[in-house]
């Protein structure tokens, strides 16, 4: 957990402050320095357009992290709302919602993201939407399950007995019973979205060039793999550190919530 937070702080520091510290514009080509090897001026060398790979990695981190974190919020919000509504209303509404989300779950996740991006076109907002849609069924299932269990808890029944409405019951009494496990899931989802976004941009379907993300900086690196393998190192390392920190945080919260699990991974 401590390691996770430390890593997360490091990643956040570099992606927020980093781009101001590097004396290169991530979009500015420098035709006098194409394919430069790593040096003090260019820590990770330059790419085929003479753009500083280190600067692009730092700037790409901003885009990648914003997409992954925003999409996580979107998917959690949609899924939680739908899950709470289904559990609260029950009956026909519940059955209908379950059917719809089951159908979405029948798509392999990555394919769903691909199709939504293909339909909407690439871009930051479109990628966030695609990830949000793809992640929602999972949260719906999770929240609906938790909320149905919570319905029968004493304090929830008591709240209902003294006249709390469905909205108040759901948000004040049902939701807090599973906020912990939900937070664990949030961290896991954010890590997963980071990887999916990287794959999308790698395929050229995510955020469009020249805006750097870790995915399309890696795509550039693939083209130059034989010539300058170090270009793949920076974005890979940054991406790995980010997902690792999120996973460690998720594990930490899980252990804190369930002392029996302590020490087992």
């Amino acid at each position, binding site marked *: 957990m401590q390691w996770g937070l430390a890593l997360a702080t490091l990643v956040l520091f570099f992606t927020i402050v980093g781009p101001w510290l590097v004396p290169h514009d991530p979009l500015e080509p420098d035709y006098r320095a194409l394919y430069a090897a790593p040096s003090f001026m260019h820590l990770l060398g330059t790419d085929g357009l003479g753009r500083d790979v280190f600067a692009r990695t730092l700037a790409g981190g901003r885009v990648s992290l914003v997409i992954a974190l925003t999409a996580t919020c979107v998917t959690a919000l949609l899924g939680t709302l739908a899950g709470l509504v289904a559990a609260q209303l029950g009956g026909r509404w519940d059955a209908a919602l379950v059917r719809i989300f089951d159908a979405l779950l029948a798509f*392999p996740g990555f394919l769903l993201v691909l*199709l939504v991006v293909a339909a909407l076109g690439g871009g930051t907002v479109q990628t966030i939407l695609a990830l949000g849609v793809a992640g929602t069924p999972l949260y719906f299932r999770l929240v609906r399950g938790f909320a149905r269990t919570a319905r029968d808890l004493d304090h929830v029944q008591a709240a209902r007995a003294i006249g709390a409405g469905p909205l108040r019951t759901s948000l004040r009494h049902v939701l807090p019973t599973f906020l912990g496990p939900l937070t664990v899931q949030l961290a896991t989802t954010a890590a997963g979205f980071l990887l999916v976004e990287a794959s999308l941009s790698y395929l050229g379907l995510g955020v469009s060039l020249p805006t750097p993300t870790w995915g399309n900086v890696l795509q550039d690196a693939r083209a130059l793999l034989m010539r300058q393998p170090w270009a793949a190192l920076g974005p890979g390392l940054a991406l790995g550190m980010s997902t*690792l920190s999120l996973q460690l945080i998720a594990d930490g919260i899980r252990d804190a919530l369930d002392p029996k699990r302590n020490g087992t991974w």
Partner: protein
Amino acid sequence: MVAFLARSLASLAVTFVMVMTLVFVAMEALPGDAAMLRSGIDASAAATDAARRELGLDAPVIVRYAQWWGDLVRGDLGDSFRERRPVTTILVERLPVTGALALAAFSLSVVLGLGLGFLAGMTPGSRFDRGVLGYTTIGLALPEFWFGFVLLLVFAIAWPVLPLIGLPDGGGAGAWLRHLTLPAITLAIPRAAQLARLTRATVLEHRQADWVRTVRAKGGPASLEFRHVAANASPGLFAPIALEAGGLLTGTIVVEQVFGLPGVGAMLIGAIGARDVPVVQGATVLAVLVYVAMNLLADVALAAGDPRAREA
């Protein structure tokens, strides 16, 4: 068991109809005008209209939806806009590459994942256990294509024992195997890690069971303890394994791109770029069919291995 199968199939049928309807809606939502693509971008309005009638696109949505189901049931996925030949033909050409890759990656990740997970779970806290933890942590923290880069650098560039990209022209099974080795390992790295984690957790849980403790207390050999754990832990692992198999078809998309393999995934990406809707649809239908079938297989396998699961 028969009742269970009947219920699973009925539920699957409903899901299938819903999913295919979603595919239809998604294909309607994809940008690009088929008639325009068919007649050429600079065709006259009349020519475009003629193409629209020829493709049956002037009919109302409901009619097209019904026709679409009719074609689908007969196994007709339409013609590619770009190549002007049946999508099923293209799929059949592409499938061997993706199928072989998926199969190789699947076998590798199941053997590795189950093996590492079981051994780590039987020896918690050992050096081996910690080694597996390290592997699964890294294996799940990076995108799979990045491992592909590393493998390429090591085994195709720095120490060129395996081919860099593409497929051999002709050549026997040996040549194919050499070309599919690195892609299959790339695909297997995160999947084996995921499975190893799950297996380890399941094994740990079942090791605490009363009957395993009894075996240990009576001084039974390690192999007996292993058998008791394996018998109870296995059914719970069927579902994740089947799900992994179902997801592999889409997992190959990125890896085919890294290694320049002409499979279904590469076809899908190309079709998305060219707005070739029938091809996108063909790949989608195929992926969804495999995924749904594997889900059913998971349920059946679980029910076969664990009678309690048949009740639900």
